[in-house]
Protein backbone atom coordinates (compact mmCIF):
# COMPACT_ATOMS: atom_id res chain seq x y z
CA UNK A 1 0.00 0.00 0.00
CA UNK A 2 2.71 2.45 1.02
CA UNK A 3 4.80 1.47 -1.98
CA UNK A 4 1.98 2.21 -4.43
CA UNK A 5 1.36 5.69 -2.99
CA UNK A 6 5.07 6.43 -2.75
CA UNK A 7 5.80 5.54 -6.36
CA UNK A 8 3.91 8.20 -8.32
CA UNK A 9 4.82 10.93 -5.84
CA UNK A 10 8.50 10.21 -6.23
CA UNK A 11 8.20 10.12 -10.02
CA UNK A 12 6.69 13.59 -10.08
CA UNK A 13 9.43 14.88 -7.81
CA UNK A 14 12.06 13.36 -10.07
CA UNK A 15 10.63 14.73 -13.29
CA UNK A 16 10.31 18.16 -11.70
CA UNK A 17 14.00 18.34 -11.02
CA UNK A 18 15.02 16.96 -14.39
CA UNK A 19 17.45 19.55 -15.75
CA UNK A 20 18.80 18.01 -18.95
CA UNK A 21 17.39 15.24 -21.08
CA UNK A 22 19.30 13.77 -23.99
CA UNK A 23 17.29 11.42 -26.17
CA UNK A 24 18.67 9.15 -28.91
CA UNK A 25 21.43 11.57 -29.78
CA UNK A 26 23.47 10.81 -32.89
CA UNK A 27 26.28 12.74 -34.54
CA UNK A 28 28.47 11.59 -37.41
CA UNK A 29 31.55 13.03 -39.06
CA UNK A 30 31.45 11.71 -42.61
CA UNK A 31 31.40 7.94 -42.20
CA UNK A 32 32.46 8.02 -38.57
CA UNK A 33 29.67 7.75 -36.02
CA UNK A 34 31.04 9.75 -33.09
CA UNK A 35 27.94 9.64 -30.90
CA UNK A 36 25.13 7.16 -31.35
CA UNK A 37 21.92 6.32 -29.47
CA UNK A 38 22.96 8.24 -26.38
CA UNK A 39 20.20 8.63 -23.83
CA UNK A 40 20.66 10.13 -20.41
CA UNK A 41 19.25 12.64 -17.97
CA UNK A 42 20.69 14.91 -15.33
CA UNK A 43 18.75 15.90 -12.27
CA UNK A 44 19.34 19.17 -10.46
CA UNK A 45 22.01 19.35 -7.83
CA UNK A 46 23.96 16.33 -9.05
CA UNK A 47 27.46 15.84 -10.38
CA UNK A 48 27.45 13.54 -13.36
CA UNK A 49 30.57 12.33 -15.13
CA UNK A 50 30.95 11.04 -18.67
CA UNK A 51 33.90 8.70 -19.07
CA UNK A 52 35.23 6.47 -21.76
CA UNK A 53 38.43 5.73 -23.69
CA UNK A 54 39.90 8.28 -26.10
CA UNK A 55 37.67 8.70 -29.12
CA UNK A 56 34.57 7.47 -27.27
CA UNK A 57 32.69 10.61 -28.31
CA UNK A 58 32.69 12.46 -25.00
CA UNK A 59 33.74 15.85 -26.35
CA UNK A 60 31.44 15.46 -29.36
CA UNK A 61 28.59 14.82 -26.93
CA UNK A 62 29.50 18.01 -25.07
CA UNK A 63 29.77 20.10 -28.20
CA UNK A 64 26.42 18.82 -29.37
CA UNK A 65 24.71 19.66 -26.07
CA UNK A 66 26.18 23.19 -26.15
CA UNK A 67 25.07 23.81 -29.71
CA UNK A 68 28.53 23.96 -31.21
CA UNK A 69 27.66 20.92 -33.31
CA UNK A 70 24.21 20.16 -34.66
CA UNK A 71 23.05 16.59 -33.94
CA UNK A 72 22.16 14.34 -36.87
CA UNK A 73 19.32 12.79 -34.88
CA UNK A 74 17.80 12.89 -31.43
CA UNK A 75 16.90 15.72 -29.15
CA UNK A 76 18.16 17.68 -26.21
CA UNK A 77 15.87 19.30 -23.65
CA UNK A 78 17.03 21.76 -21.02
CA UNK A 79 14.51 22.41 -18.24
CA UNK A 80 11.84 20.87 -20.42
CA UNK A 81 12.62 23.13 -23.37
CA UNK A 82 13.82 21.59 -26.61
CA UNK A 83 17.15 23.23 -27.48
CA UNK A 84 18.24 20.95 -30.31
CA UNK A 85 19.82 23.00 -33.09
CA UNK A 86 19.94 26.24 -31.12
CA UNK A 87 23.05 28.38 -31.57
CA UNK A 88 25.51 28.25 -28.63
CA UNK A 89 24.90 31.82 -27.47
CA UNK A 90 21.17 31.18 -26.99
CA UNK A 91 21.85 27.99 -25.06
CA UNK A 92 24.33 29.87 -22.89
CA UNK A 93 21.70 32.51 -22.13
CA UNK A 94 19.33 29.76 -20.94
CA UNK A 95 21.78 28.86 -18.17
CA UNK A 96 24.08 26.23 -19.63
CA UNK A 97 27.76 27.08 -19.51
CA UNK A 98 30.95 25.22 -20.25
CA UNK A 99 34.72 25.07 -20.16
CA UNK A 100 36.93 23.76 -22.94
CA UNK A 101 39.27 20.79 -22.99
CA UNK A 102 42.14 22.72 -24.59
CA UNK A 103 41.32 26.06 -22.93
CA UNK A 104 39.71 28.75 -24.97
CA UNK A 105 40.49 31.96 -23.15
CA UNK A 106 40.71 35.38 -24.74
CA UNK A 107 44.46 35.90 -24.74
CA UNK A 108 44.10 39.54 -25.81
CA UNK A 109 42.37 40.39 -22.53
CA UNK A 110 43.16 40.49 -18.82
CA UNK A 111 42.01 37.83 -16.37
CA UNK A 112 39.26 40.10 -15.07
CA UNK A 113 38.04 41.01 -18.57
CA UNK A 114 37.89 37.32 -19.47
CA UNK A 115 35.59 36.68 -16.53
CA UNK A 116 33.60 39.83 -17.31
CA UNK A 117 32.73 38.31 -20.70
CA UNK A 118 31.09 35.55 -18.71
CA UNK A 119 28.61 38.13 -17.40
CA UNK A 120 27.32 38.67 -20.93
CA UNK A 121 24.20 36.45 -20.70
CA UNK A 122 22.57 38.35 -17.84
CA UNK A 123 23.51 41.90 -18.83
CA UNK A 124 21.97 44.12 -21.48
CA UNK A 125 23.91 47.27 -22.39
CA UNK A 126 24.09 47.66 -26.16
CA UNK A 127 25.85 49.92 -28.60
CA UNK A 128 23.64 52.97 -28.04
CA UNK A 129 23.63 52.96 -24.24
CA UNK A 130 27.40 52.42 -24.26
CA UNK A 131 28.04 55.31 -26.63
CA UNK A 132 25.87 57.61 -24.50
CA UNK A 133 27.21 56.18 -21.21
CA UNK A 134 23.69 56.14 -19.77
CA UNK A 135 23.50 55.91 -15.96
CA UNK A 136 22.04 52.42 -15.94
CA UNK A 137 24.80 51.25 -18.28
CA UNK A 138 27.38 52.60 -15.82
CA UNK A 139 25.61 50.82 -12.94
CA UNK A 140 25.53 47.59 -14.92
CA UNK A 141 29.22 47.95 -15.73
CA UNK A 142 30.02 48.22 -12.01
CA UNK A 143 27.84 45.18 -11.30
CA UNK A 144 29.76 43.23 -13.96
CA UNK A 145 33.11 44.12 -12.39
CA UNK A 146 31.84 43.15 -8.93
CA UNK A 147 30.44 39.82 -10.14
CA UNK A 148 33.62 39.00 -12.04
CA UNK A 149 35.78 39.82 -9.03
CA UNK A 150 33.59 37.60 -6.84
CA UNK A 151 34.14 34.66 -9.21
CA UNK A 152 37.89 35.26 -9.25
CA UNK A 153 37.77 35.28 -5.45
CA UNK A 154 35.97 31.91 -5.56
CA UNK A 155 38.65 30.26 -7.70
CA UNK A 156 41.44 31.97 -5.74
CA UNK A 157 42.71 34.26 -8.48
CA UNK A 158 41.66 37.65 -7.10
CA UNK A 159 45.30 38.73 -6.93
CA UNK A 160 45.77 38.10 -10.65
CA UNK A 161 42.74 40.08 -11.86
CA UNK A 162 44.64 42.67 -13.89
CA UNK A 163 47.31 40.58 -15.60
CA UNK A 164 47.04 39.38 -19.21
CA UNK A 165 45.57 35.91 -19.13
CA UNK A 166 48.34 34.50 -21.33
CA UNK A 167 50.88 35.18 -18.58
CA UNK A 168 49.33 32.72 -16.13
CA UNK A 169 50.32 29.10 -15.60
CA UNK A 170 48.21 26.42 -17.24
CA UNK A 171 46.55 25.45 -13.97
CA UNK A 172 45.58 29.04 -13.22
CA UNK A 173 44.24 29.53 -16.72
CA UNK A 174 41.98 26.50 -16.17
CA UNK A 175 40.66 28.26 -13.09
CA UNK A 176 40.04 31.46 -15.08
CA UNK A 177 37.94 29.40 -17.48
CA UNK A 178 36.01 27.97 -14.56
CA UNK A 179 35.43 31.48 -13.16
CA UNK A 180 34.32 32.71 -16.59
CA UNK A 181 31.83 29.83 -16.93
CA UNK A 182 30.48 30.49 -13.41
CA UNK A 183 30.11 34.20 -14.16
CA UNK A 184 27.37 33.34 -16.66
CA UNK A 185 25.27 32.26 -13.61
CA UNK A 186 24.62 28.80 -15.06
CA UNK A 187 22.20 26.19 -13.77
CA UNK A 188 24.13 23.48 -15.57
CA UNK A 189 27.91 23.61 -15.88
CA UNK A 190 29.72 21.41 -18.41
CA UNK A 191 33.38 20.79 -17.65
CA UNK A 192 35.42 19.24 -20.43
CA UNK A 193 38.38 17.44 -18.83
CA UNK A 194 38.86 20.05 -16.09
CA UNK A 195 41.77 18.18 -14.49
CA UNK A 196 43.88 17.57 -17.57
CA UNK A 197 47.23 19.31 -17.26
CA UNK A 198 46.78 19.93 -13.52
CA UNK A 199 49.16 18.62 -10.87
CA UNK A 200 47.95 16.58 -7.88
CA UNK A 201 47.51 19.58 -5.61
CA UNK A 202 45.62 21.51 -8.26
CA UNK A 203 43.40 18.49 -8.94
CA UNK A 204 42.53 18.25 -5.25
CA UNK A 205 41.62 21.95 -5.20
CA UNK A 206 39.55 21.42 -8.32
CA UNK A 207 37.63 18.54 -6.72
CA UNK A 208 36.85 20.75 -3.74
CA UNK A 209 35.76 23.58 -6.04
CA UNK A 210 33.46 21.31 -8.04
CA UNK A 211 31.81 20.05 -4.85
CA UNK A 212 31.32 23.63 -3.67
CA UNK A 213 29.84 24.56 -7.04
CA UNK A 214 27.36 21.69 -6.71
CA UNK A 215 26.55 22.75 -3.14
CA UNK A 216 25.80 26.27 -4.37
CA UNK A 217 23.00 24.78 -6.46
CA UNK A 218 24.70 24.41 -9.84
CA UNK A 219 24.43 21.03 -11.51
CA UNK A 220 27.67 19.72 -13.01
CA UNK A 221 28.32 17.47 -15.99
CA UNK A 222 31.95 16.62 -16.55
CA UNK A 223 34.11 14.67 -18.92
CA UNK A 224 37.22 13.45 -17.18
CA UNK A 225 40.09 11.01 -17.51
CA UNK A 226 41.26 11.23 -13.91
CA UNK A 227 39.43 8.22 -12.45
CA UNK A 228 40.11 9.02 -8.82
CA UNK A 229 38.60 12.48 -9.29
CA UNK A 230 35.57 11.03 -11.08
CA UNK A 231 34.99 8.32 -8.48
CA UNK A 232 35.42 10.80 -5.61
CA UNK A 233 33.02 13.51 -6.63
CA UNK A 234 30.49 12.05 -9.06
CA UNK A 235 26.98 11.08 -8.09
CA UNK A 236 26.41 9.31 -11.39
CA UNK A 237 28.65 8.10 -14.19
CA UNK A 238 27.83 7.55 -17.85
CA UNK A 239 30.32 5.35 -19.70
CA UNK A 240 30.66 5.72 -23.46
CA UNK A 241 32.51 3.44 -25.85
CA UNK A 242 32.67 4.01 -29.60
CA UNK A 243 29.99 6.65 -29.22
CA UNK A 244 27.50 4.33 -27.53
CA UNK A 245 26.45 4.27 -23.88
CA UNK A 246 27.69 1.25 -21.94
CA UNK A 247 26.29 1.96 -18.51
CA UNK A 248 24.76 4.89 -16.65
CA UNK A 249 24.83 4.37 -12.91
CA UNK A 250 26.41 5.26 -9.57
CA UNK A 251 30.22 5.06 -9.12
CA UNK A 252 30.22 1.78 -7.20
CA UNK A 253 28.17 -0.05 -9.82
CA UNK A 254 30.26 1.40 -12.63
CA UNK A 255 33.53 0.46 -10.94
CA UNK A 256 32.42 -3.17 -10.68
CA UNK A 257 30.81 -3.47 -14.09
CA UNK A 258 32.38 -6.19 -16.23
CA UNK A 259 31.94 -4.27 -19.48
CA UNK A 260 33.59 -1.15 -18.07
CA UNK A 261 36.55 -3.16 -16.82
CA UNK A 262 36.87 -4.83 -20.20
CA UNK A 263 36.78 -1.46 -22.00
CA UNK A 264 39.40 0.09 -19.80
CA UNK A 265 41.70 -2.88 -19.34
CA UNK A 266 41.07 -4.59 -22.64
CA UNK A 267 40.86 -8.01 -21.01
CA UNK A 268 44.51 -8.25 -20.04
CA UNK A 269 45.91 -6.58 -16.99
CA UNK A 270 49.05 -4.84 -18.12
CA UNK A 271 47.62 -1.34 -18.57
CA UNK A 272 46.80 1.33 -16.06
CA UNK A 273 43.08 2.08 -15.82
CA UNK A 274 43.24 5.16 -17.99
Amino acid at each position, binding site marked *: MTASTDGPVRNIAESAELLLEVRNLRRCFGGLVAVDAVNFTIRSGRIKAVIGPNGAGKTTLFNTICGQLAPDAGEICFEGRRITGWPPYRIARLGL*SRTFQNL*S*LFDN*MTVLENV*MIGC*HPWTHAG*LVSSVLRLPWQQRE*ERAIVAAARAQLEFVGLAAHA*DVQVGGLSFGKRRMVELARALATRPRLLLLDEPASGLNTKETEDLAASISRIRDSGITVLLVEHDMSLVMDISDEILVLDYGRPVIDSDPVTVRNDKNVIAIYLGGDFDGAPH
Partner: protein
Amino acid sequence: MKRRGTVFALFAYAAIMIGIQLLATGTGHEYYLTQLIMTAYYTLVVLGLCLVMGYAGQISLGHGAFFALGGYTSAVLTTLDLNAQAATPLGRALLHIGVLMSRQSLYGEELTSISPWVAFVAAILLTVVVATLIGYPTLRLHGHYLAMGTLGFGLIVYRLLLGTNFTGSADGISSVPPWQLLPNLVISGSSAHRVPNYYVAWTLTGAALLVILNVVHSRTGRALRSIHGGERAANAMGVNTAAQKLRVFVLSAALAAVAGSFFTHYNAAIGPSEAGVMKSVRYVTLVAAGGMANIWGVLIIGSLLTFLSLRGCFGSFDHAVFGSILILIMTLTPEGPLAPLAAVVRSAWRRLRRRSEQIPGAADDSID
Protein backbone atom coordinates in the same frame (compact mmCIF):
# COMPACT_ATOMS: atom_id res chain seq x y z
CA MET B 1 40.66 55.49 -13.22
CA LYS B 2 40.54 54.83 -16.94
CA ARG B 3 37.87 57.49 -17.35
CA ARG B 4 40.10 60.26 -16.03
CA GLY B 5 42.81 59.26 -18.50
CA THR B 6 40.34 59.47 -21.37
CA VAL B 7 39.13 62.92 -20.36
CA PHE B 8 42.72 64.10 -20.05
CA ALA B 9 43.59 62.66 -23.46
CA LEU B 10 40.61 64.39 -25.07
CA PHE B 11 41.72 67.71 -23.58
CA ALA B 12 45.20 67.06 -24.93
CA TYR B 13 43.64 66.30 -28.33
CA ALA B 14 41.81 69.65 -28.32
CA ALA B 15 44.89 71.53 -27.15
CA ILE B 16 47.09 69.98 -29.85
CA MET B 17 44.55 70.78 -32.57
CA ILE B 18 44.31 74.42 -31.45
CA GLY B 19 48.09 74.59 -31.18
CA ILE B 20 48.62 73.27 -34.70
CA GLN B 21 46.15 75.79 -36.10
CA LEU B 22 47.76 78.73 -34.27
CA LEU B 23 51.20 77.58 -35.36
CA ALA B 24 50.15 77.18 -39.00
CA THR B 25 48.41 80.56 -39.08
CA GLY B 26 51.13 82.29 -37.09
CA THR B 27 53.97 81.09 -39.29
CA GLY B 28 52.10 81.92 -42.50
CA HIS B 29 51.56 78.28 -43.46
CA GLU B 30 47.80 78.36 -43.26
CA TYR B 31 47.54 76.36 -46.48
CA TYR B 32 48.73 73.37 -44.44
CA LEU B 33 45.28 73.41 -42.89
CA THR B 34 43.80 72.27 -46.21
CA GLN B 35 45.68 68.97 -46.01
CA LEU B 36 44.98 68.78 -42.29
CA ILE B 37 41.24 69.04 -42.97
CA MET B 38 41.43 66.21 -45.49
CA THR B 39 43.57 64.28 -43.01
CA ALA B 40 40.83 64.61 -40.39
CA TYR B 41 38.23 63.06 -42.70
CA TYR B 42 40.49 60.20 -43.75
CA THR B 43 41.44 59.63 -40.11
CA LEU B 44 37.74 59.36 -39.27
CA VAL B 45 37.50 56.43 -41.70
CA VAL B 46 40.60 54.83 -40.22
CA LEU B 47 39.28 55.16 -36.65
CA GLY B 48 36.02 53.49 -37.63
CA LEU B 49 37.92 50.70 -39.35
CA CYS B 50 40.04 50.31 -36.21
CA LEU B 51 36.90 49.27 -34.33
CA VAL B 52 36.18 46.52 -36.85
CA MET B 53 39.76 45.40 -37.46
CA GLY B 54 41.59 46.06 -34.23
CA TYR B 55 38.84 45.11 -31.82
CA ALA B 56 36.54 42.64 -33.58
CA GLY B 57 39.36 41.20 -35.71
CA GLN B 58 37.48 41.46 -39.01
CA ILE B 59 39.20 42.93 -42.05
CA SER B 60 37.20 45.19 -44.34
CA LEU B 61 38.62 46.09 -47.73
CA GLY B 62 35.51 48.10 -48.57
CA HIS B 63 35.91 51.23 -46.49
CA GLY B 64 37.06 53.26 -49.46
CA ALA B 65 33.82 52.25 -51.16
CA PHE B 66 31.73 53.26 -48.12
CA PHE B 67 33.51 56.61 -48.04
CA ALA B 68 32.71 57.03 -51.74
CA LEU B 69 29.14 55.88 -51.20
CA GLY B 70 28.66 58.64 -48.64
CA GLY B 71 30.42 61.23 -50.77
CA TYR B 72 28.69 60.35 -54.01
CA THR B 73 25.25 60.24 -52.41
CA SER B 74 25.78 63.77 -51.13
CA ALA B 75 27.25 64.89 -54.45
CA VAL B 76 24.52 63.40 -56.64
CA LEU B 77 21.61 64.60 -54.51
CA THR B 78 22.91 68.14 -54.01
CA THR B 79 23.63 68.61 -57.72
CA LEU B 80 20.35 67.17 -59.06
CA ASP B 81 18.49 69.59 -61.28
CA LEU B 82 15.03 69.81 -59.70
CA ASN B 83 14.02 73.18 -61.17
CA ALA B 84 10.91 71.70 -62.81
CA GLN B 85 9.82 69.88 -59.66
CA ALA B 86 10.39 72.95 -57.51
CA ALA B 87 7.69 74.80 -59.44
CA THR B 88 4.97 72.36 -58.32
CA PRO B 89 3.07 73.00 -55.06
CA LEU B 90 4.77 70.01 -53.43
CA GLY B 91 8.15 71.31 -54.58
CA ARG B 92 7.39 74.74 -53.14
CA ALA B 93 6.41 73.15 -49.84
CA LEU B 94 9.61 71.09 -49.73
CA LEU B 95 11.62 74.19 -50.58
CA HIS B 96 9.89 76.00 -47.75
CA ILE B 97 10.72 73.34 -45.11
CA GLY B 98 14.29 73.04 -46.35
CA VAL B 99 14.28 69.62 -48.00
CA LEU B 100 15.06 71.35 -51.28
CA MET B 101 17.49 74.21 -51.63
CA SER B 102 17.94 76.85 -54.32
CA ARG B 103 21.29 78.33 -55.26
CA GLN B 104 23.11 80.03 -58.11
CA SER B 105 24.80 77.50 -60.38
CA LEU B 106 28.25 78.10 -61.90
CA TYR B 107 26.59 79.74 -64.90
CA GLY B 108 24.58 82.12 -62.77
CA GLU B 109 21.29 80.27 -63.22
CA GLU B 110 18.91 79.41 -60.44
CA LEU B 111 19.37 75.71 -59.56
CA THR B 112 17.14 73.83 -57.14
CA SER B 113 18.32 70.53 -55.69
CA ILE B 114 18.22 68.58 -52.46
CA SER B 115 19.59 70.21 -49.34
CA PRO B 116 22.98 68.95 -48.07
CA TRP B 117 21.41 67.99 -44.72
CA VAL B 118 18.88 65.70 -46.39
CA ALA B 119 21.57 64.34 -48.71
CA PHE B 120 23.78 63.66 -45.67
CA VAL B 121 21.04 61.66 -43.92
CA ALA B 122 20.33 59.79 -47.16
CA ALA B 123 24.04 59.00 -47.52
CA ILE B 124 24.18 57.46 -44.06
CA LEU B 125 20.96 55.49 -44.52
CA LEU B 126 22.07 54.13 -47.89
CA THR B 127 25.45 53.10 -46.46
CA VAL B 128 23.80 51.40 -43.49
CA VAL B 129 21.57 49.39 -45.83
CA VAL B 130 24.43 48.43 -48.15
CA ALA B 131 26.78 47.53 -45.28
CA THR B 132 24.06 45.36 -43.74
CA LEU B 133 23.51 43.56 -47.05
CA ILE B 134 27.22 42.79 -47.36
CA GLY B 135 27.87 42.12 -43.69
CA TYR B 136 24.90 39.88 -42.97
CA PRO B 137 25.97 36.88 -45.07
CA THR B 138 29.74 37.27 -44.69
CA LEU B 139 29.89 37.94 -40.94
CA ARG B 140 27.86 34.85 -40.06
CA LEU B 141 30.86 32.82 -41.20
CA HIS B 142 34.11 32.50 -39.30
CA GLY B 143 37.33 33.65 -40.92
CA HIS B 144 38.16 36.21 -43.53
CA TYR B 145 34.95 36.14 -45.53
CA LEU B 146 34.32 39.79 -44.78
CA ALA B 147 37.65 40.70 -46.37
CA MET B 148 36.71 38.79 -49.52
CA GLY B 149 33.17 40.13 -49.63
CA THR B 150 34.20 43.74 -49.10
CA LEU B 151 37.04 43.45 -51.61
CA GLY B 152 34.55 42.37 -54.25
CA PHE B 153 32.16 45.11 -53.17
CA GLY B 154 34.93 47.74 -53.44
CA LEU B 155 35.83 46.63 -56.95
CA ILE B 156 32.19 46.68 -58.03
CA VAL B 157 31.58 50.18 -56.62
CA TYR B 158 34.74 51.50 -58.28
CA ARG B 159 33.81 50.04 -61.68
CA LEU B 160 30.21 51.22 -61.40
CA LEU B 161 31.28 54.77 -60.58
CA LEU B 162 33.77 54.72 -63.43
CA GLY B 163 31.24 53.43 -65.95
CA THR B 164 28.15 55.42 -65.04
CA ASN B 165 27.37 58.78 -66.65
CA PHE B 166 25.06 59.58 -63.79
CA THR B 167 28.08 59.73 -61.42
CA GLY B 168 30.29 61.57 -63.88
CA SER B 169 32.33 58.51 -64.98
CA ALA B 170 36.06 59.05 -64.57
CA ASP B 171 35.64 62.78 -63.85
CA GLY B 172 33.43 62.25 -60.84
CA ILE B 173 31.10 65.01 -59.72
CA SER B 174 32.26 68.58 -59.32
CA SER B 175 30.50 71.81 -58.32
CA VAL B 176 29.08 70.21 -55.20
CA PRO B 177 27.61 73.15 -53.24
CA PRO B 178 28.93 74.31 -49.86
CA TRP B 179 27.05 72.96 -46.85
CA GLN B 180 25.62 75.56 -44.50
CA LEU B 181 26.00 73.73 -41.17
CA LEU B 182 25.07 76.70 -38.97
CA PRO B 183 24.14 80.30 -39.84
CA ASN B 184 27.80 81.32 -39.99
CA LEU B 185 29.50 77.97 -40.46
CA VAL B 186 29.93 76.61 -43.96
CA ILE B 187 31.63 73.42 -45.16
CA SER B 188 33.46 74.79 -48.15
CA GLY B 189 36.94 74.70 -49.58
CA SER B 190 37.32 78.46 -50.02
CA SER B 191 40.29 79.83 -48.12
CA ALA B 192 38.06 82.28 -46.23
CA HIS B 193 36.44 79.30 -44.48
CA ARG B 194 39.66 77.37 -43.90
CA VAL B 195 40.04 77.83 -40.14
CA PRO B 196 36.41 77.09 -39.20
CA ASN B 197 36.51 74.07 -41.52
CA TYR B 198 39.64 72.85 -39.78
CA TYR B 199 37.80 72.93 -36.46
CA VAL B 200 34.67 71.30 -37.90
CA ALA B 201 36.74 68.45 -39.34
CA TRP B 202 38.74 67.76 -36.21
CA THR B 203 35.73 68.19 -33.91
CA LEU B 204 33.87 65.61 -35.99
CA THR B 205 36.83 63.25 -35.77
CA GLY B 206 37.10 63.96 -32.03
CA ALA B 207 33.42 63.14 -31.58
CA ALA B 208 33.90 59.87 -33.45
CA LEU B 209 36.90 59.19 -31.24
CA LEU B 210 34.75 59.65 -28.15
CA VAL B 211 32.03 57.36 -29.56
CA ILE B 212 34.61 54.68 -30.36
CA LEU B 213 36.31 54.97 -26.96
CA ASN B 214 32.95 54.60 -25.22
CA VAL B 215 32.19 51.51 -27.28
CA VAL B 216 35.61 50.02 -26.61
CA HIS B 217 35.28 50.42 -22.83
CA SER B 218 31.86 48.80 -22.62
CA ARG B 219 30.12 45.45 -22.67
CA THR B 220 29.97 45.72 -26.47
CA GLY B 221 33.69 46.50 -26.73
CA ARG B 222 34.54 43.53 -24.56
CA ALA B 223 32.32 41.30 -26.66
CA LEU B 224 34.14 42.51 -29.80
CA ARG B 225 37.54 41.77 -28.31
CA SER B 226 36.34 38.36 -27.17
CA ILE B 227 35.37 37.60 -30.78
CA HIS B 228 38.93 38.51 -31.77
CA GLY B 229 40.32 36.36 -28.94
CA GLY B 230 38.22 33.30 -29.71
CA GLU B 231 34.93 33.33 -31.54
CA ARG B 232 33.85 29.86 -30.41
CA ALA B 233 34.36 30.64 -26.74
CA ALA B 234 32.69 34.04 -27.10
CA ASN B 235 29.65 32.31 -28.53
CA ALA B 236 29.62 29.78 -25.70
CA MET B 237 29.60 32.67 -23.21
CA GLY B 238 26.37 34.02 -24.67
CA VAL B 239 27.82 36.57 -27.10
CA ASN B 240 25.81 36.66 -30.32
CA THR B 241 28.99 36.96 -32.33
CA ALA B 242 27.35 37.34 -35.75
CA ALA B 243 25.10 40.19 -34.55
CA GLN B 244 27.92 41.99 -32.72
CA LYS B 245 30.20 41.83 -35.75
CA LEU B 246 27.44 43.07 -38.03
CA ARG B 247 26.51 45.97 -35.75
CA VAL B 248 30.07 47.23 -35.43
CA PHE B 249 30.73 46.79 -39.14
CA VAL B 250 27.66 48.87 -39.99
CA LEU B 251 28.65 51.54 -37.45
CA SER B 252 32.10 51.71 -38.95
CA ALA B 253 30.76 51.91 -42.51
CA ALA B 254 28.43 54.71 -41.43
CA LEU B 255 31.39 56.64 -39.99
CA ALA B 256 33.16 56.25 -43.34
CA ALA B 257 30.07 57.60 -45.10
CA VAL B 258 29.93 60.60 -42.73
CA ALA B 259 33.56 61.33 -43.56
CA GLY B 260 32.88 60.94 -47.28
CA SER B 261 29.93 63.30 -47.16
CA PHE B 262 31.80 66.08 -45.31
CA PHE B 263 34.88 65.56 -47.46
CA THR B 264 32.85 65.94 -50.67
CA HIS B 265 31.30 69.22 -49.54
CA TYR B 266 34.68 70.49 -48.44
CA ASN B 267 36.36 69.59 -51.71
CA ALA B 268 33.24 70.54 -53.71
CA ALA B 269 33.94 67.39 -55.73
CA ILE B 270 34.47 63.65 -55.55
CA GLY B 271 36.01 61.22 -58.00
CA PRO B 272 35.97 57.44 -58.44
CA SER B 273 39.52 57.03 -57.10
CA GLU B 274 38.09 57.47 -53.59
CA ALA B 275 36.43 54.07 -53.98
CA GLY B 276 39.59 52.47 -55.38
CA VAL B 277 40.90 49.33 -53.75
CA MET B 278 44.26 51.02 -53.07
CA LYS B 279 42.42 53.53 -50.87
CA SER B 280 40.81 50.72 -48.89
CA VAL B 281 44.14 48.94 -48.57
CA ARG B 282 45.63 52.23 -47.36
CA TYR B 283 43.05 52.42 -44.55
CA VAL B 284 43.82 48.85 -43.50
CA THR B 285 47.53 49.65 -43.54
CA LEU B 286 47.03 52.67 -41.31
CA VAL B 287 45.10 50.66 -38.72
CA ALA B 288 47.85 48.04 -38.71
CA ALA B 289 50.55 50.70 -38.47
CA GLY B 290 48.81 52.32 -35.50
CA GLY B 291 48.83 49.07 -33.55
CA MET B 292 45.42 47.50 -34.39
CA ALA B 293 43.52 47.51 -31.07
CA ASN B 294 44.99 50.86 -30.10
CA ILE B 295 42.71 53.84 -30.82
CA TRP B 296 45.24 56.51 -29.83
CA GLY B 297 48.05 54.87 -31.77
CA VAL B 298 45.84 54.60 -34.84
CA LEU B 299 44.81 58.25 -34.44
CA ILE B 300 48.36 59.56 -34.17
CA ILE B 301 50.09 57.31 -36.71
CA GLY B 302 47.13 57.36 -39.07
CA SER B 303 46.81 61.13 -39.18
CA LEU B 304 50.56 61.71 -39.34
CA LEU B 305 51.12 59.36 -42.28
CA THR B 306 48.01 60.60 -44.08
CA PHE B 307 49.12 64.21 -43.70
CA LEU B 308 52.65 63.51 -44.95
CA SER B 309 51.22 61.61 -47.89
CA LEU B 310 48.76 64.41 -48.74
CA ARG B 311 51.59 66.96 -48.53
CA GLY B 312 53.37 64.85 -51.10
CA CYS B 313 56.33 64.10 -48.84
CA PHE B 314 56.66 60.59 -50.24
CA GLY B 315 56.54 61.81 -53.83
CA SER B 316 55.92 59.17 -56.42
CA PHE B 317 57.07 56.49 -53.98
CA ASP B 318 53.88 56.93 -51.95
CA HIS B 319 52.73 53.29 -52.01
CA ALA B 320 56.29 52.01 -51.60
CA VAL B 321 56.82 54.19 -48.55
CA PHE B 322 53.57 52.97 -47.01
CA GLY B 323 54.55 49.36 -47.69
CA SER B 324 57.97 49.84 -46.12
CA ILE B 325 56.51 51.55 -43.06
CA LEU B 326 54.10 48.68 -42.60
CA ILE B 327 56.87 46.08 -42.85
CA LEU B 328 59.07 48.00 -40.42
CA ILE B 329 56.30 48.41 -37.85
CA MET B 330 55.15 44.81 -38.13
CA THR B 331 58.66 43.46 -37.56
CA LEU B 332 59.91 45.95 -34.99
CA THR B 333 56.84 46.84 -32.90
CA PRO B 334 53.87 44.66 -33.79
CA GLU B 335 51.72 46.42 -31.18
CA GLY B 336 52.25 49.76 -32.89
CA PRO B 337 55.11 52.23 -32.71
CA LEU B 338 53.54 53.94 -29.71
CA ALA B 339 53.43 50.79 -27.57
CA PRO B 340 57.07 50.96 -26.38
CA LEU B 341 56.64 54.67 -25.69
CA ALA B 342 53.46 54.01 -23.71
CA ALA B 343 55.27 51.35 -21.67
CA VAL B 344 57.96 53.87 -20.72
CA VAL B 345 55.37 56.48 -19.73
CA ARG B 346 53.39 53.94 -17.73
CA SER B 347 56.39 52.68 -15.76
CA ALA B 348 57.45 56.26 -15.03
CA TRP B 349 53.92 57.03 -13.82
CA ARG B 350 53.91 53.95 -11.61
CA ARG B 351 57.26 54.92 -10.10
CA LEU B 352 55.94 58.41 -9.45
CA ARG B 353 52.83 57.03 -7.74
CA ARG B 354 54.82 54.64 -5.58
CA ARG B 355 56.89 57.56 -4.41
CA SER B 356 53.81 59.66 -3.64
CA GLU B 357 52.18 56.75 -1.80
CA GLN B 358 55.03 56.72 0.66
CA ILE B 359 53.91 60.15 1.77
CA PRO B 360 50.72 59.36 3.71
CA GLY B 361 47.59 60.95 2.28
CA ALA B 362 49.37 62.19 -0.83
CA ALA B 363 47.63 59.79 -3.18
CA ASP B 364 44.13 58.61 -2.38
CA ASP B 365 42.94 58.28 -5.97
CA SER B 366 42.31 54.63 -6.66
CA ILE B 367 43.75 53.54 -9.96
CA ASP B 368 42.59 50.30 -11.50
